């Protein structure tokens, strides 16, 4: 039941194949199709959206998604919205609790390893932490994040490239509670950056299996969004033609449609969306 989620990938049903939606109204531009979502990764050059994944403790769901997005070459950062990092302990009443932004994944790993290696290997915590410490160094709290503050000190993190400026275009939360916390925090921060950000919620249960499948769902959404955003840049790009109709539709207004389509493909992950401000 509890194996390193990375090793379990083979057991997990692959996300449904993404069909191509040929759009006859669209003018095909040479080289515009260089970001095919079906390949599962985005080409190095070209426009990329920046992503931020959020869950309660910045351990399981957000980190799984962080890994997936970063592996697909998308700029990604991740956070937790809880007051503390909470991990299961020996009993349900004795969770292991750590402060955000302080203790590293490595330190947590070592501590749990010393505490009870069998238990934490069996419930998947040690493998999870071992994965996390390859992604970035410590769990971060969303509310403590200062958007727009450069993140050059995170250059060892996976998915770092593109997130240097400390802003993202898309936030994806994994639980309604986190979605609410993110919206509330953005209200509190007051939108001083005047920068729009699409905030999504995808409800994923907090266990290793669901995190893994949900990570695939998040990646699917992210690739879709990125594709649409990249296309917008192409269409309105150097050619500069001033057409009208569907092909003029930009990325932002397509978001509800993309999410609607995504929701039909992933009916088990109820999704929410809003456009908020940094």
């Amino acid at each position, binding site marked *: 039941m509890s194996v390193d989620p990375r090793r379990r990938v083979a057991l997990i049903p692959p996300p449904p194949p993404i069909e191509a939606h040929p759009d006859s109204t669209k003018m095909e531009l*040479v080289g515009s199709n260089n970001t095919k979502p079906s390949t599962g990764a985005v080409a190095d050059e070209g426009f990329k959206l920046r992503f931020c994944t959020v869950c309660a403790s910045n351990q399981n769901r957000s980190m799984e998604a962080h890994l997936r997005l970063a592996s697909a070459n998308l700029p990604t950062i991740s956070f937790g919205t809880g007051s503390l990092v909470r991990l299961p302990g020996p009993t349900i009443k004795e969770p292991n609790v750590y402060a955000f932004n302080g203790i590293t994944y490595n330190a947590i790993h070592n501590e749990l390893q010393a505490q009870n290696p069998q238990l934490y290997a069996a419930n998947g915590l040690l493998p999870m932490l071992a994965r996390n410490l390859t992604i970035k160094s410590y769990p971060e709290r969303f509310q403590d994040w*200062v*958007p*727009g*503050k*450069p993140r*050059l000190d995170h250059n060892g993190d996976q998915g770092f490239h593109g997130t*240097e*400026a400390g*802003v993202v275009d898309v936030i994806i939360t994994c639980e309604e509670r986190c*979605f*609410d916390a993110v*919206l*509330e925090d*953005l*209200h*509190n921060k*007051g*939108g*001083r*950056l*005047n*920068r*729009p950000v699409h905030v999504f919620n995808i409800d994923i249960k907090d266990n290793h299996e669901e995190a893994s499948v949900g990570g695939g769902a998040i990646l699917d959404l992210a690739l879709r969004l990125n594709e649409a955003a990249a296309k*917008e*840049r192409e269409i*309105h*790009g*150097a*050619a*500069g033609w*001033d057409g009208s109709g569907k092909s*003029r*539709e*930009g*990325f*932002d*207004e397509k*978001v*509800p*449609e993309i*999410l*609607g*389509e995504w*929701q*039909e493909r992933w009916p088990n992950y109820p*999704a*929410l*969306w*809003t*456009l*908020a*401000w*940094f």
Partner: protein
Amino acid sequence: MATNPLSTSTTTIAQLESARNLALGDARYYNQILLGILPLISGANIPVELQRWGADFIAEAFANPVLLPGDKQTMAIEPSKDAQNMTVIEALKGYLETSQDAAVVRSVVQAAASVYPLVFRHTIVNPSDTQNWQVMAAIKSNILRRMDSAPPGVRICCIKFVQRVIQVETPGLISDPRRPEQNEISLALVPRDHPLLQLPNLEAEASGLLDRLLDILQSDISDALLVTATLNSLGTLVRCRPVIANKIISAVLNFNPFKLANSPLTSKSKVMMKAMERTGRALLVNLMKREPGNPFNARIQQYVERMARLRIEVLDDTNRKRPAPSEPTDGFDPSKRPRLEAHGQVVGAPPPGPVSFADLYTLTHDAGAKSFDVQVIPIDTVVQIIVPMLMRIDKGKMDDAINTVRARLLTLSKLPPQPTASLSGPDDDDYEPDFAPREDAEQLSNKLANAPPEGLDVPPSTSLAPFKLPQAPPITEKELEDYGNSTIRRVFDTMNALSTPAKKTKPGFNRCAASSYDREAWMTIIARLATRAGIGLGDEEEDEVAYAGGPVKIKSEGKRVLKSGWKLNEAIREMLYQHIMADWRRRIDFATSWLSEEWYNDRISGDFFAAQTRKLNGNGNGSTAATTPQTPNYTKWVLKLLDSMLPYLESNDKGIIRFLSEIPAIDEQILTRVKRIAEDPERVGLTVNVLHYLILFRPPVREMCVGAVEDLWRNYDGAKTSTRKLLLKWRPEVLQEELVKAENAKVNGEALGVGGPVAAQDEMKA
């Protein structure tokens, strides 16, 4: 696409990126870098990639939280070092005027939203700097022009820009008048006599822009992107601009996120409605949290709950009924609904048929008012209320009411005179208690007392409607059974709710059963309910058949016997049985006391029926029922309990020994069950122990038990050794007999060459 400019711009971008990284590493470089690269990134002939990069970089620079506002302000209006002497705001203006690219415009509008307050403050401090303010004003009007026509991606940024402008051009709070640079940029900082910034104009502009912003919420075309962008930008305004907070909250409370529900539901429109509802809720909840004492909070709470209900109604696929009503949301407020029956109440004629005084004077259709008993109001209070009420009553209404009653009386008086309103019903052979009509009359006189005074001189010629309690519908058998079962269940629940007293005192024999209100007492009550309550009630003949034996037939006329065979006694017994079997080891006490009750009752009623039979037969000559008392219920249930217990017995179970030693009677059938335990080789010992115990401590059944042991010895192979000891003591002759047989068999066997035991068995059978 031309490759050449593209490749040059790619290399330029690479260079610019490294400059950007420098600035990200240390914000102090921003000013220098920005002014240095301004000519490279802005201008009509610059490739669009570079323009995008440049606009994005400007927006990023002015959004950077590390960079101080003062530095940003300088950066915005400082001219570049090259020949063009261009400032950043001029570059922004240039982008807006020349670029067609949505991405460029988007970034420029973002940058403008950040720059606008800075230039505003610069202008406050430097009233003579007309030029920069004019550039900024040009940017502002350009953006406001775009706001309604630009692609949505740009429009959302325009919305945010407008929000910033409103925030700047509305008076805010002055936190510290001595240090103007610390204050938030707002209209409050502008001196009254400022040559460029005229307060009334700015205020008017802000107010107009706010209307435009809130219009997005009220427009019929719900574009979730614009709506959520607006809602999410309003929070700041409510918080730091109390002057306009109420207006904004009212607008949000009037916003209906489910306008799309009237069009066909697609996955997209569902996403949009959910987004709008959720965003509105997040905004309002945030406002409530920040200001717990806000007078709006109750309304906000109401709105949030209503929207949650609507969302379930509209979006929940499982029980979707119909789209949300399209009426304005305020229409839901009961206080704002038009009152349709406010005036000119249409009160028709009283119902046909006999009319009571109450009917005559009833002028309302409201059932609540009709059934209200005025007697509950003390008379002096009534007097206090009535007088001012009569003084204030609407003349027209009063006249209407009087006329209505008059008209009724007139119609009634024209009717053929009814038989006099005698107090008792005229030709009713139905049973009617005497007091019912009298009470009715009393009620009538009460009504009369409160009726308009004109009513007092009514001739008492109208007949009174006789009051008749409607007959309850007949209960079906199923219902009867259900009610019965639920009653029984309630009795058991009462018992389960009672706790067993912590310490038990042994009351000895001198006590009364079920006298204390505890669990044990209740057990006794239940057991007696099961055994005695129903005796001789419903199923007499069955009882008699059971007790007296023989087919006694009594005609049961008008007796109600359920076809389904459900009987109260049996139902209680069944429940008792289940209750005991749920935890039989602990409830053996209960079981034995119940069975004792059964046994006792069987004996008593057996005697009773025997006596009856004797009487019927005419001084009976010793009927069988009297001499051999039967215990049908006892036997039935003791066997049933035993049968259910047996599978659970372990090889050294004391429970069964206790049970068998405590029940009031043991017969052959019970012993047969006990012997059957021995079929399981592991439990042979148990059977023997049980029998041994009974032999030792229950002399009345000793013989029977020894017989059982003998049977075991003879017929159960595994029981030989363990029963031998008992037989040796209680019935040695069996062993003796067997010994003799064995001897014979041995002799025969030797002669015939057959194994001894087989031969012995053959002989036994013979």
